[in-house]
């Protein structure tokens, strides 16, 4: 016989008890390791999704609403060892089933054979011709169509001219096409292609880039270049592009004067970007900047000439208030040298608001209708205007009163086209007409014919692509980072399963204590035979280790099953938190080992500490000290319990005195402290009762007496129930009522009725009557429009770690008094926090506001932290998070003021996010009105309350998981209670037999036992529920939650009922056993 053999003997002999213990350990191992495996699987899936959505892409060059030539890609592959794939990527709307099925956010990709290398396919995309397309599986599913079928595709018009530039018509900014599906691309054909850091696959459509170019009349352009490796870093890539691109990629047109006197530089975008203008002036300091503008009228002494071009091209040294007019104009308005003429024009606002302005000029000179003043090339190339056959065909971005156009104006147009009728100083023109697209419409370099070629070669190298809005992204690296650092499901499920884990550990402790408690006499015998306490401990520890390892191994297998169950739930009832069906299970051996290792450590701790206590107790020869210790422990427990409770109460009082702002965190800490304090006080009370005199008067006092016999066991049961009740009630209380108070301005909807997004940007101000008329919109509601700078979705719907969320540019005044704020410095939250957005901070520093959940969870930041973006001019801008809103419909976005937005994203095209405010009773009318009017723009509208509810659904789903785990934990608690109860009856069989012998009926004994255990149940449930109510008091005070005292009452009632049923059942079984009869005979 040796200690090992003894341990094995004990293990076998007590196999049933050890099996229960092993199961307790198996449950904790399964829960813990399962959480790790879930985390691994989600991480693996996110990484896998990165591979499946990027294909071979490592880096990208995006040019936004600019279009580079396909030749750039060819040149690149010739010069460098990489073969980038050009893509013309546009937004589209897919309509099938005769308009019944519509997808508004389709990504249309014009691709060629080079995309096959990205996708790892052979001729799949290269073979696309004409109107045949390949669509992604999800799009096919949503449209319920397949290969060979056709549907209608409406796309945003890609134009070399920014549609939002002054005087550019925004008519026909979509193009429709009937396309035929050649194939449906699965993930292995890169059907899920996306550059967005999101696990949700976009709706993709692939078409021949050639066909798309034809449709858009772009003449061989693209706006996205995909690099399949071969790139060192983005800086180097940008330099390489700058070394290869040509003037067409910059949107410039160079044309020599037929007379050979000068070379003219114009922009396809009407206005020349400042950085390009600077580059031209760097290359040719003598280049003459020209600004030619379309004015509404030129008037003098009651006579007026409508719609004319005025330019700055003149050799004269004009003062700011001087003007040169041509003879035709002088005749028309009867003006001459020294006369003052009025010049009326529009200042075009960000939403094409037309602000009429007028300026007076003194005529310095009247010039003849000959060169250099008779020069129609000074007119910028504005589609719809410069190419119009006559004035009545003008299609401009400003309203034209055709009635004011006279025959002589038509004649002038016919003879001289847009030849400027007047000339002013360039400085004055800049003051009046400089806009976010630039301040010049052309340059003239007075050099010979060869200058064009020389300029073509020298200008591009002087412009950094990022200065004009090109973005270079190490997309693979960034995506991998996002996936790696995404939502940690190990932590999440570890946290969510905390109570289940705690329950399993407590059950382990309880079972082990029961096991060694029952063997106390044996241990005493071993001690009496001189076996040292350490040897006794070692034998039991060895036995426990074997049980723990066996339980751990069972737990590992269970963890795999647990993981499968969690994934089934994540792909079904809990899908709201993952939003993808691409989750795959990944089981890594090191993870299993880690889970097993940690679980074993926990199990060993759960075994070791009770064991050490027991053995120490055995080794202690001074038994009388036990009572003194008990009294002392009771005092310590009371002091600790009262301290914790007092701190909790002080925190609560401070919180109430603090006034309006409610910090849920403080309440939760208070509740937590109350729970701990309450449990410690109960323990202290048990100790005090246990060490004091008490008289048995009735079954209740007898029950209490019995509970005191094993106080640690009793407090463990109380703890399990208290924790379970606390978690179930606090979780239930935090569940959001998805639609309550959604119409209030302080709610997460801001009181808005609808939240909408459009595929095609809305360029006009929808509060403008003319614009509403244009779209056929009625009155009675207001639309708040927001600009969008593309970024990733940082809402809780995205599992990836997001660094640059989508930016919304909004007029803060339109949000004034709406939504609620939960974070920000105290000073910041006084008054209207939206005003913070209008602050002017340092250069390139922009104040921003986001949803607190975005700040905290998606970005991992706090208020005061900074997000870094690339502005349109290539410079970095820093968005400082000034305040955080309570959960709102803005989740996923960062908001800045419209003014700051336009400063850093000046050429951004229109608005794409909308909030609709109107009377609830008119909601149907408003919805129908907008749906009908904005339909062609890919208008996607939902109730603001429904959008908020969708986000809250995620929170609620997490809470549901927590609730499920809490309930499972309570189940473990109940199992623990049942085991304790059953063992207790067995242990006390002689005593119970005696009671029977002295005339106690079975019912009375049952009542006595039930009283004892109901007391434990009550103590746990009441402590837990009181603490939970305090912890979630803000939820009880808020009307925006499902918390109510009725709910608490129902939960407590259910828990008690559940407990009573189990106690009754187990007591019945215990008292039915033959053992009791045998014990009775013995006694």
């Amino acid at each position, binding site marked *: 016989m040796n200690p090992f053999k003894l341990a094995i003997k004990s293990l076998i002999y007590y196999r049933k008890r050890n099996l229960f213990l092993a199961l307790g350990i198996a449950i904790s191992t399964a829960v813990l390791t399962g959480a790790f495996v879930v985390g691994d699987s989600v991480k693996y899936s996110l990484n896998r999704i990165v591979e499946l959505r990027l294909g071979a892409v490592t880096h990208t060059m995006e040019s936004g609403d600019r279009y580079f030539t396909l030749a750039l890609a060819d040149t690149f592959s010739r010069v460098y060892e990489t073969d980038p794939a050009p893509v013309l990527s546009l937004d589209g709307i897919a309509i099938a089933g005769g308009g019944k099925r519509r997808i508004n956010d389709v990504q249309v990709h014009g691709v060629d054979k080079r995309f096959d290398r990205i996708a790892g396919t052979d001729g799949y995309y290269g073979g696309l011709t004409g109107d045949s397309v390949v669509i992604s599986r999800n799009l096919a599913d949503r449209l319920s169509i397949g290969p060979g079928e056709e549907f209608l595709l409406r796309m945003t018009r890609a134009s070399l001219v920014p549609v939002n530039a002054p005087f550019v018509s925004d008519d026909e900014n979509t193009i429709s096409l009937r396309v035929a599906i050649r194939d449906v691309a699965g993930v292995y054909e890169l059907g899920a292609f996306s550059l967005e850091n999101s696990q949700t696959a976009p709706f993709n459509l692939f078409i021949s880039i050639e066909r798309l170019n034809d449709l858009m009349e772009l003449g061989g352009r693209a706006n996205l270049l995909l690099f399949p490796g071969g790139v060192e870093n983005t800086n180097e890539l940008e330099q390489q592009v700058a070394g290869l691109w040509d003037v067409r990629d910059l949107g410039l047109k160079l044309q020599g004067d037929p007379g050979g006197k000068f070379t003219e530089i114009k922009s396809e975008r009407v206005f020349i970007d400042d950085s390009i203008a600077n580059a031209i002036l760097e290359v040719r300091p003598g280049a003459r900047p020209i600004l030619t503008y379309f004015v509404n009228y030129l008037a003098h002494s009651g006579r007026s000439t409508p719609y004319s071009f005025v330019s700055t091209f003149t050799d004269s040294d004009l003062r700011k208030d001087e003007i040169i007019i041509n003879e035709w104009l002088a005749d028309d308005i009867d003006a001459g040298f020294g006369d003052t003429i009025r010049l009326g024009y529009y200042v075009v606002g960000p939403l094409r608001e037309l602000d009429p302005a007028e300026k007076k000029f003194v005529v310095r000179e009247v010039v003849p209708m000959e060169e250099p003043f008779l020069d129609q090339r000074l007119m910028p190339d504005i589609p719809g205007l410069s190419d119009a056959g006559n004035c009545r065909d003008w299609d401009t971005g400003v309203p034209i009163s055709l009635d004011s156009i006279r025959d002589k104006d038509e004649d002038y147009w016919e003879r001289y086209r847009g030849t400027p009728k007047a000339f002013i100083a360039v400085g004055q023109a800049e003051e009046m007409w400089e806009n976010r697209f630039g301040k010049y419409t052309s340059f003239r370099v007075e050099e010979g014919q060869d200058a064009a070629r020389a300029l073509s070669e020298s200008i591009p190298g002087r412009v950094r692509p990022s200065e004009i809005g090109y973005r270079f992204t190490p997309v693979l690296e960034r995506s991998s980072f996002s996936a790696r650092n995404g939502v940690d499901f190990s932590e999440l499920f570890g946290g969510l399963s905390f109570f289940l884990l705690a329950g399993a550990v407590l059950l382990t402790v309880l079972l082990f204590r029961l096991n060694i408690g029952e063997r106390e006499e044996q241990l005493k015998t071993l*001690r009496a035979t001189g076996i040292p306490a350490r*040897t006794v401990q070692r034998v039991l520890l060895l036995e426990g280790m074997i049980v723990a390892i066996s339980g751990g191994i069972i737990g590992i297998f269970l963890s795999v099953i647990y993981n499968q169950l969690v994934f089934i739930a994540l792909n079904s009832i809990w899908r709201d938190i993952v939003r993808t069906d691409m989750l795959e299970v990944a089981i890594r051996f090191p993870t299993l080992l880690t889970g097993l290792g940690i679980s074993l450590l926990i199990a060993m701790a759960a075994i070791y500490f009770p064991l050490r206590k027991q053995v120490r107790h055995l080794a202690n020869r001074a038994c009388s000290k036990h009572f*003194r210790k008990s009294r002392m422990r009771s005092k310590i427990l009371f002091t600790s319990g009262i301290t914790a409770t007092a701190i909790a109460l002080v925190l609560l009082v401070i919180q109430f005195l603090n006034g309006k702002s409610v910090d849920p965190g403080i309440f939760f800490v208070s509740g937590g402290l109350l729970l701990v304090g309450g449990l410690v006080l109960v323990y202290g009370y048990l100790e005090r009762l246990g060490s004091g005199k008490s008289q048995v008067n009735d079954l209740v006092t007898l029950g209490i007496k019995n509970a005191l016999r094993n106080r640690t066991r009793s407090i463990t049961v109380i703890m399990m129930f208290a924790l379970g009740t606390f978690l179930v009630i606090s979780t239930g209380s935090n569940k959001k009522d998805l639609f309550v108070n959604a119409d209030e301005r302080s709610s997460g909807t801001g009181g808005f009725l609808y939240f909408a997004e459009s595929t095609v940007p809305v360029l006009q101000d929808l509060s403008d009557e003319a614009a509403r008329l244009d779209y056929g919109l009625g009155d009675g509601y207001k639309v708040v429009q927001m600009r969008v700078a593309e970024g990733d979705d940082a809402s809780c719907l995205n599992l990836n770690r997001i660094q640059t969320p989508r930016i919304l540019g909004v007029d803060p005044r339109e949000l004034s008094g709406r939504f609620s704020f939960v974070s920000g410095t105290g000073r910041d939250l006084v008054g209207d926090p939206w005003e913070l957005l209008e602050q002017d901070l340092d250069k390139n520093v922009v104040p921003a506001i986001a949803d607190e959940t975005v700040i905290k969870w998606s970005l991992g930041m706090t208020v005061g932290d900074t997000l870094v973006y690339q502005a349109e001019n290539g410079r970095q801008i820093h968005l400082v998070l000034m305040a955080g809103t309570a959960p709102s419909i803005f989740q996923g976005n960062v908001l800045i003021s419209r003014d700051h937005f336009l400063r850093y994203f000046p050429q951004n095209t229109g608005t794409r996010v909308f909030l609709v405010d109107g009377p609830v009773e008119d909601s149907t009318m408003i919805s129908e009105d907008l749906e009908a009017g904005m339909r062609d723009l890919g208008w996607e509208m939902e109730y603001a309350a429904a959008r908020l509810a969708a986000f809250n659904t995620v929170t609620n789903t997490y809470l549901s998981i927590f609730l499920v785990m809490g309930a499972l934990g309570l189940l473990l608690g109940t199992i623990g209670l049942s085991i304790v109860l059953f063992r207790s009856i067995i242990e006390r069989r002689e005593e119970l037999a005696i009671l029977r012998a002295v005339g106690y009926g079975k019912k009375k004994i049952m009542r006595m036992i039930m009283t004892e255990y109901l007391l434990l149940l009550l103590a746990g449930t009441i402590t837990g529920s009181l603490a939970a109510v305090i912890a979630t008091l803000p939820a009880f005070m808020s009307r925006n939650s499902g918390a109510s005292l009725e709910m608490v009452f129902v939960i407590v009632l259910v828990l008690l009922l559940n407990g009573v049923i189990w106690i009754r059942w187990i007591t019945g079984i215990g008292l039915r056993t033959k053992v009791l009869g045998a014990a009775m005979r013995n006694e």
Partner: protein
Amino acid sequence: MLKIEEVYKSFGNQAGTEQQQVLQGIGLEVGEGETIAILGPSGSGKSTLMNIIGALEEPDRGEVIYRGRKINDYTEKELDRFRNEEVGFVFQFHQLLPQCNLQENVLIPTLVSKADRKEKRAYAESLLKRTGLWEHRHKLPGQLSGGECQRTAVIRAMINRPKLLLADEPTGALDGRNVDVLTDLLMELNRDEKVAIILVTHSRELASRMGKVYELKNGVLHQQ
């Protein structure tokens, strides 16, 4: 061999407000091979006295001196060795480990003994044969009668050849025939192994077979 001097022991009630004096200045001397019986009613402190002698409990006052050295001065290790090698304990209930068979139970005290295991096994065999338990050596305690178990407990107490055997109501749970068998065994061991025996019992008949008989009354020992 063993001397008990002025041993006092009291227990507090649960509230710790009252102290009940159980032993009040006990004095006793035990020589080599001597047999002593201690009689006394329940709750008179007999078991407490046995526990103090066996170093399982500490006296409030007074000393237990074994071979000239105070037990209170023993280190924990020495106490373990004392309990393992110098003293053998027999309880009212046999307290055999239910998971071990008879032979294993008998050898439990040798778990930590440095003595020759073979010799111990041979000694266990001889004792088991002598008590008629050898054929039951592979049986578990649950498969044996109370008397057989108690005899096994006596063998377990003797396995390390202690000089002192402490028996706390060893026949308390046995029927008449088994009482005789066990008493005979104890006397045989005393005779053959020269082991001193202190036996606590209610039974005057059993006590009468011991060399000296004491009665514990009101915390004081009175020789009969």
